[in-house]
């Protein structure tokens, strides 16, 4: 038996989480370093996975399979396709930056504060989330996936509810109230989605007598497993609802702004750049493969919802007064693009959506982490409290601008490629939806530039006049992200090469082919 | 006479006992009512035993008695210790389950 690489990739951060949590209370710095090292080691493992993965090989590679709960046919089954590999790599890349960016976020507050912030716990929880996310990407057993899809909520709940920004405009008591509100909302909202999915998972088992994604999908493909149309649709909706909450898709999005607003910037990045990706990933992997007919049936409605997400999220981002909420709504808009790409059912759309997941992770991380650095300096999240930062902290402003430009999908930066692919992919099949979605790029420019203008330009506000520029640690966080953004913007081939074959498979699962161009079709 | 009548009697006694449990507040009386209910059940078991012509019903009744005895011992002990601490044998006074 070969080395269980996938298990190791998930188990390492899990063990790291336990180890970090076990570091004595006095050794705070040691815990941080331990967490960082573990995340870097996980990154190394993820890169190994990436290298060992052969894009042109079998659909699922590096598979592992062990019986787990025999009575219900639940297996511990892991395997990665190109999409999963890309997302595992994204997760593994982002976590070290998240840890580094949150280096001081969980330090004990000055004496006299009643809030208790266990540093070890913060980093252990981040590693725990990483472990669960990674295994969610790897699981090819529906039940196994479900367990970690849900279990992820627990560490996230504590991360949101337990660690807020150092300063808050309404004082500490209000902050604590709002934080716990956001955390509870996050938890309940996702739990509801998860429970509906659980019902669908059970239903799937009843119908298919199996939990294995590969077996069900192949049985569906060769017709040996027939599902009644209505059954398939109900099961699809059960799965989709959970993923749409997680993603989040309008109108199930309202937990995200609260959660991102109240958590620290690194945790907000963890939510939107890593955890939410599980939702969109699962749409691609589970919804489309298990229920191809129902997916095609639901496509029009989902596309419209995605379109609403795009425009609505962008418009709301324009109207926000809180930096983090703004980024949250921008993310909602971007998730609309991702979902639209997935359900456009074209190779451009789906490859673009996968690429979008990766790029959105990086670009949001860049923007949000810099925003976090900014917020930690001034102690306010309100846009109106800033002004003229560019003058006093040019590097901070510059990186913020690049993050913003990535968010608005400037050509040359990574998100452009994915956004354009999604738009083209949608346009070839649904021209009207594609055109309306294109308005999203104008709105994106609006919210990013308004944010930049209000915070960074104009006369220097007295409160920000003594603001220090980015420190070395912060630069170490931001610079690689920006480099990645530029690299993937000019040369996205490494990612698309891995993703394309997987997307081709998915397309054949749903029995869809790219529409032919008019000129060729005429010939 | 049909032995079914014993069953009717048992049902009546059981209902009276149950109503007593609900109405009375004195824990001791409540306990007595429970004993009444158990006895009603025993009567039913014995009647069943006769109707079916085997002794299993009587065995069950016997076990019921044993369990009832055990229950009474513990229950009364609880009442005594409650009375010691709260100086009351009213079940309404022990409403600690309310938030």
């Amino acid at each position, binding site marked *: 038996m070969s080395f269980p690489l996938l298990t190791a990739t998930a188990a390492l951060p899990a063990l790291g989480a336990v180890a970090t949590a076990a570091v004595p209370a006095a050794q705070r710095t040691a815990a941080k370093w331990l967490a960082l090292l573990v995340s870097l080691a996980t990154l190394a493992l993820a890169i190994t996975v990436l290298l060992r993965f052969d894009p042109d090989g079998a659909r699922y590679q590096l598979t592992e399979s062990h019986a787990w709960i025999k009575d219900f046919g639940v297996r511990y089954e892991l395997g990665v396709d190109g999409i999963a590999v890309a997302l595992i790599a994204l997760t593994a890349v982002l976590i070290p930056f998240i840890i580094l960016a949150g280096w001081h976020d969980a330090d004990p507050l000055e004496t006299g504060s009643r809030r208790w912030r266990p540093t070890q716990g913060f980093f252990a929880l981040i590693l725990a989330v990483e472990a669960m996310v990674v295994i969610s990407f790897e699981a090819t057993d529906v039940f196994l996936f479900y367990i970690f899809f849900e279990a992820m909520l627990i560490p996230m709940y504590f991360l949101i509810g337990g660690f807020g920004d150092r300063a808050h405009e309404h004082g500490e008591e209000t902050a604590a109230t709002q934080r716990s509100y956001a955390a509870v909302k996050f938890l309940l909202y996702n739990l509801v989605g998860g429970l509906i999915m659980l019902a669908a998972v059970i239903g799937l088992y009843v119908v298919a007598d199996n939990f294995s994604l590969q077996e069900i999908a192949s049985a569906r493909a060769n017709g040996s497993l027939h599902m009644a149309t209505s059954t398939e649709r109900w099961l699809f909706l059960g799965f989709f609802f959970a993923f749409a909450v997680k993603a989040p898709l309008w109108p199930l999005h309202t937990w995200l702004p609260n959660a991102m607003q109240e958590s620290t910037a690194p945790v907000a990045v963890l939510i939107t750049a890593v955890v939410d990706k599980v939702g969109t990933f699962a749409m691609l992997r589970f919804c489309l493969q298990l229920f191809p007919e129902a997916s095609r049936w639901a496509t029009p409605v989902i596309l419209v919802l995605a379109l609403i997400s795009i425009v609505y999220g962008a418009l709301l981002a324009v109207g926000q007064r809180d930096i983090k909420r703004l980024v949250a709504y921008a993310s909602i808009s971007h998730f609309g693009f991702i979902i639209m790409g997935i359900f456009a059912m074209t190779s451009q759309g789906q490859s673009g959506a996968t690429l979008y997941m990766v790029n959105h992770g990086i670009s949001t991380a860049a923007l949000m982490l810099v925003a976090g650095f900014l917020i930690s300096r001034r102690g306010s999240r309100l846009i109106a409290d800033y002004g003229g930062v560019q003058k006093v902290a040019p590097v901070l402003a510059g990186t913020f601008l690049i993050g913003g430009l990535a968010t608005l999908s400037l050509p040359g930066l990574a998100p452009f490629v994915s956004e354009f692919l999604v738009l083209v992919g949608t346009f070839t099949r649904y021209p009207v939806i594609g055109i309306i979605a294109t308005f999203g790029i104008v709105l994106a420019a609006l919210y990013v530039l308004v944010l930049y203008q209000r915070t960074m330009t104009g006369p220097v506000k007295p409160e920000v006049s003594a603001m220090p520029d980015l420190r070395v640690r912060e630069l170490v966080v931001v610079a690689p992200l920006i480099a990645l953004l530029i690299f993937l913007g000019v040369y996205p081939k490494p990612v698309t090469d891995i993703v394309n074959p997987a997307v081709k498979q998915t397309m054949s699962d749903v029995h869809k082919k790219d529409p032919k161009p008019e000129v060729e079709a005429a010939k | *006479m*049909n*032995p079914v*009548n*014993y069953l*009717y*009697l048992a049902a*009546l*006694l059981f*209902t*009276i*006992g*149950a*109503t*007593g449990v*609900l*109405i009375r*507040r*004195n824990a*001791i*009386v409540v306990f*007595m*009512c429970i*004993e*009444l209910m158990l*006895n009603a059940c*025993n*009567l039913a078991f*014995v009647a069943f*035993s*006769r*109707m079916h*012509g085997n*002794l*299993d019903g*009587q*065995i069950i*009744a*016997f*076990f019921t*008695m*044993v*369990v*009832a*005895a*055990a*229950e*009474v*011992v*513990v229950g*009364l*002990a*609880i009442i*005594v*210790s409650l*009375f010691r601490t709260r*100086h009351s*044998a*009213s079940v*309404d006074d022990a409403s600690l389950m309310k938030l």
Partner: protein
Amino acid sequence: MNAQHLAAYTTSTGEAFQFWVLGTIAVIGALCTVFMKKAVHSALCLAGTMIILAIFYLANGAYFLGIVQIVVYTGAIMMLFLFVVMLVGVTAADSLKETIKGQRWLALLCGVGFGVLLFAGIGNASLKEFNGTGQANANGNVEGLASLIFTKYVFAFEITGALLITAAVGAMVLTHRERTERAKTQRELSEQRIREGRHVPPLPAPGVYARHNAVDIAGLLPDGTPSELTVSKTLRERGQIRDVSTEALNDLRALEQRAEERLERTAIEPETFKRPEEASK
């Protein structure tokens, strides 16, 4: 075949007569158990009902159970009840006033509904024929039970044994009071009294100036009012203080009058003695 044996599988007119008479009494006993104000009376009524049930067991061929019913239930369990009633207070009468809104009505509704349903169920399933225990009791009832208990039900039997032991231990643990601190010496108690400043002398004894000197009768203060301090705390909390102040004072007056008559003194107060609060009315 003796008559009792016969009764095991047939019913005679005598048994019917017995059922109707004793059954009525059993129901009345049960109702009294529920509705008697005092726990003692309830217990006595219940004991009656249980004895009748024992007779019914015998009538149904359950001879062993009938005897056990009398010995264990009526003899042991009911005695236990009476002991506890005594501990809690024999004379204490419950108020039958309901404190939970709608409880009584709900209880009656449920009771009646449940009864009706049970009756309907039994009526629905009623058997016209029955086997009787004659066959089963052929080798004697006790022997029959024993063979079952020690073969088929031996496991349950063992468990009930364990249960009984557990119950006994549990009851002991529950009622046993562990002293958590050393008992105070007399010296310490008096020091404490001085320190607190209330009731520096020992508490007064009950029954002073009263005709009775039972422990539940409060001693009277010089103005004739009873002092609850004189009665033990347990009785005070049970509400079992008997107030004899009025009659005691009237008795005293009568005594004084008689003494005056004998000593030929003039009456000091012509009217009868009244307690201050009554006088002010």
